[in-house]
C-alpha cells in the first residue's frame, strides 16, 4: 500500500487529450496513467509506453505447454508403461501432436490471461482506486504524479490551459487491495 499525491484532469475529447499528453510529457511532468473507457489507438505511443512483454511471456508459456505434453506422454507411453496401440511404435509422435498443440494453447492462454491480470492489477474481488468514475464511462482522465517539488497551482493552471476539466489534487492508493470501496476509500481520505 502506497498512497501518493496526484493531480488529475478530465478530458472530454480525444482531440484535446492527444496534444495535452504530448505537452505534459514535453513539460517534464510524470504521467502516472491515462484512464480511458475504451482502447485508443496510438495513445500508448503518445504516452511513451514501451512495448509490452506479454508476447514473450506467452511464447514461454506455450513452449512450456508443448514440453509438458511431450514429456508426459512420452514418459507414460514410451517408457513407464508401454502399451501397443494397433502395432504403432511406442514413440508415436504424430498421434501426440494434437495433444501437444492443445496443451500449448492451454498454457499460453491461461498463462497470458493471468499475466495480463497481474500486470494490469485486476482480479476478482480485488479493488483499485479510481481517479474519476467518468473514466469508465465517457471521458479520459489524465493523472500526473506529484513529488515534493511539484507546485500545485502551477500544474493546475497548466492542465486547465490544455483544456482539462475538473482538475483536482487527489491522494490515491496506487496498488490493488482486497476489501471494499466504501470503507477503504474513506479510510484513505482520512489519512490525508
Amino acid at each position, binding site marked *: 500500500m502506497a498512497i501518493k499525491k496526484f493531480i488529475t484532469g478530465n478530458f472530454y475529447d480525444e482531440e484535446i487529450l492527444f496534444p495535452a499528453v504530448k505537452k505534459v510529457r514535453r513539460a517534464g511532468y510524470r504521467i502516472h496513467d491515462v484512464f480511458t473507457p475504451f482502447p485508443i*489507438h*496510438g495513445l500508448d505511443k503518445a504516452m511513451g509506453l514501451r*512495448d509490452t512483454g506479454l*508476447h514473450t511471456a506467452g*511464447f514461454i508459456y506455450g513452449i512450456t505447454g508443448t514440453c509438458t505434453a511431450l514429456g508426459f506422454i512420452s514418459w507414460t507411453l514410451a517408457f513407464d508403461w508401454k502399451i501397443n496401440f*494397433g*502395432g*504403432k511404435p511406442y514413440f508415436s509422435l*504424430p*498421434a501426440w*501432436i*494434437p495433444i501437444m498443440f492443445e496443451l500449448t494453447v492451454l498454457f499460453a492462454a491461461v498463462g497470458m490471461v493471468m499475466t495480463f491480470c497481474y500486470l494490469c492489477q485486476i482480479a476478482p474481488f480485488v479493488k483499485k482506486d479510481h481517479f474519476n468514475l467518468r473514466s469508465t464511462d465517457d471521458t479520459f482522465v489524465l493523472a500526473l504524479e506529484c513529488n515534493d517539488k511539484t507546485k500545485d497551482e502551477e500544474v493546475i493552471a497548466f492542465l486547465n490551459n490544455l483544456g482539462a476539466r475538473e482538475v483536482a489534487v487527489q491522494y490515491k492508493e496506487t496498488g490493488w487491495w482486497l476489501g471494499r470501496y466504501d470503507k477503504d476509500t474513506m479510510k484513505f481520505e482520512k489519512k490525508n
Partner: protein
Amino acid sequence: MDTISIREKFIVPKRYNTIAIALMTIGIIAIATLYIYTHGVKGTEEYKLRRDARFWASLLQNSVYFLLVVNAVMFFICATTLAWGGWQMSFRRVSEAISTCVPVIGVIAGVVLLAICFSDNHTIYHWADKEAVQHDPVLLGKSGFLNKTFFTVWTLITIGGWSFLGWKIRRLSRSTDDNPMDLEGRKKYMWNNTVWAALFIVLFALTVMSSIPWLWLMSIDAHWYSTMYSWYTFGSSFVAGLALITLFVVFLKNNNYLELTNEEHLHDLGKFMFAFSIFWTYLWFSQFMLIWYSNQPEETIYFITRIGNFAKGSPYRVLFWFMFCINFLAPLLIFMTRGSKRNYATLTFMSLLILFGHWLNFYQMVFPSPMINHETGDTHVPMILADFGVALGFVGLIMFVTGRALGRAPLIARNHPFIKESVIHHT
C-alpha cells in the same frame, strides 16, 4: 494539415522489363531443353512414356501452381471485399494487377491440362485410358467424375469463370476512378462490388476449394483419394498468393510508389502469411495423421511414394521434409515477432521462401507417381533444376503481365468509399 504527394501512375522501369523478359527466355530455354532431354531417348516403350510424362508433369506442375497462386490473389480481393475490409484498399490495385495474370496463365494451364488428358500417354492421368479403366474396378467407380468430357468442360468453365469474374471485378474497381460518387452512388457501388465478389467466392468454393485440385492434381494418383486435398491445395496457393502481393507491395514501396501503404498494412500481410502457413500445416497434418493412424494400404500408398516407411525411405523424403520446414517452421519462428512482420527485408525473404516452398509442395504432389518405374516399383526425383527453370519462366511472365497492368491503372482507387479506412489503418 500535412499534404502528401502521390505518384498515381506506375512507370515500368526498363530494367524491370528486361529482367522479366530474361526470365521468360530462361523459361522457354528450359522447356526446350527439357523436351530434347526427355524425348529421342532409347529404351523400352514404358521408359519412353515415362520420359514423355516427365516433360508434361513439369509443365503441369508449374502452370497449375502459378495459375492457382495468381487466382488466390483474386480470392484475397474478394474475401476482403465480402468482409467489408478497408485496410487493403491502399494496395488493392496491386492485387488487381497480379490477378490480370489469371487469363494468361489460365490459357497455358488449360492447354497443358487438355494436352495431357487427350494424349495417348496415360502415365500422368491413368483414368484417361479407357481400356485400362474397364478392367479397374476402382477407376470404373470414379469414372463418373474422372472422364475426359467432364474434365474438359469443367476445366474450361473454371478457367473461363475465373478470368471473367476477375475481369468484371477489376472493371468495377476501375469504374470509380473518374467518378466521385455521392452517398447513394457509394452504396450502389458497394452493393455491386459485394455481389460480384460473392459470385467469385462461390465459383472459387466450387473449384479451388473442392473439385479442381481433385481433378487436376489428385487424379494423378487416381486410385488414391483424400477429401482434404483441395483445402490443402488452397492453403498452399493462398499463402503463396499473399507472398506474391507482399513482394509487389515491397517492390513498389522501394520505388517510392504506394505512399499510403505503410508498415501497418505490411504487418497485416505478414500476419496473413503467418496465419495461413499454419493453416496449411494444420491441413497437411490432418491429412497425414488420419492416413498414418488408420494405416490402410490404399491410403498410405500416397505417403509411401513421398516419405517412405521404416523399411525403405522414398527418394522424395528429403525434398518433402525440406519443404515442410520452409513452409511451416520458418514462417512460424521468423514471423512470430512483431518487428519481423514490419521489416521489408524479412518480409521479402519470407515471401520468396514461401513462394519457393509451396512450389516444392506442388512438386511433391505432382511428380512422385508419374516417375514410378513399373518394373521395379520405385520412384525417383527427376532433375529438379530444369523444372526450376520453367518456374522462372512463369515468374517472368507474372512480372511482365503484372507490370503492364500496374502501369495501366492508377495505383490508388481514390474514390473507393473505404480508402480513408485504409489510410488511417493502425495495427
